[in-house]
């Protein structure tokens, strides 16, 4: 594995988004992974509709919350094509599901791989490099006050409550860390990113990690 790896360097990570006052992190995380995997496959990086997943993934509860694995399971089962964001823009509110024909442009999930990498974060680094950005769930209670730097304390595992996108890692310095894109806008954290120490399953970053196959 390379000592550091960042999918942003390959221009396959979309800009940081802002979920606003809507519990849609699970949809941002899944759609972020889809967008990047699609671009890694050779397509142009295109932002896809988070609102479509929010409205239509009936196994979840829209702005009231949801799970990345349930959203991926729904996307895989239904083979729904997620349309470009411009055609189904984000409203930060749960709405009525809009249907598109299968001939409509969009990206469908063929499969996904989900694992608990606790105690195996090096293997998780391998998955990130091999598969693309990873949808992960974390305990983000202490993130209310986060300004920047590498989180090494005050973060539990196995009490996950937030979904994010892991886009890279860096093991070059004294403290190896994951590079994580959040969906709280660019005014939060380091331009919308948070760094989490690798090893010890800090914030439960390795508890439930999914890669998308398109």
């Amino acid at each position, binding site marked *: 594995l390379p000592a550091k790896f960042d999918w942003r360097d390959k221009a396959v990570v979309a800009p940081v988004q802002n979920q606003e006052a809507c*519990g849609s992190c699970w949809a941002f995380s899944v759609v972020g992974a889809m967008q990047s995997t699609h671009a890694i496959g050779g397509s142009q990086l295109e932002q896809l509709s988070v609102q479509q997943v929010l409205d239509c993934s009936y196994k979840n509860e829209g*702005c009231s919350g*949801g799970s990345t694995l349930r959203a991926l399971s729904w996307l895989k089962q239904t083979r729904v094509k997620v349309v470009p964001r411009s055609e189904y823009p984000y409203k930060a509110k749960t709405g009525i599901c809009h249907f598109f024909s299968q001939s409509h442009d969009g990206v469908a999930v063929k499969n996904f791989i989900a694992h608990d990498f606790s105690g*195996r974060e090096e*293997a998780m680094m*391998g998955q990130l490099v091999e598969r693309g950005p990873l949808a992960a769930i974390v305990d983000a209670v202490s993130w209310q*006050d*986060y*300004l920047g730097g590498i989180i090494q304390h005050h973060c539990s595992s196995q009490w996950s409550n937030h979904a994010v996108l892991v886009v890279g890692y860096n093991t070059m310095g004294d403290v190896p860390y994951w590079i994580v894109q959040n969906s709280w806008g660019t005014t939060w954290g380091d331009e919308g990113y948070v760094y989490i120490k690798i090893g010890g399953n800090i914030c439960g970053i390795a508890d439930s990690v999914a890669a998308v196959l398109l």
Partner: protein
Amino acid sequence: SFREQFHRRYEVNSEEFTRRHLYFQNATERHAYLNSLSAGPQSAKYGINRFSDLSQKEFRDLYLRASADRAPLFSGLKTEG
């Protein structure tokens, strides 16, 4: 200055101002605690941001809405599917 920076509209001395002020004070106490374990230039820093006038419950209720479905333990490179 917090209200100005983060475009808060509640009036000084209103009921909401009093409540938000209390949450803000609680946040600064949290920051002191969270920063107390920070050592080294790379350590995480905690401080005032746009969530500082939310109670911890409000923050959880608004932003921490993901539920966790357990995934199988990773046991090697041939376990996909």
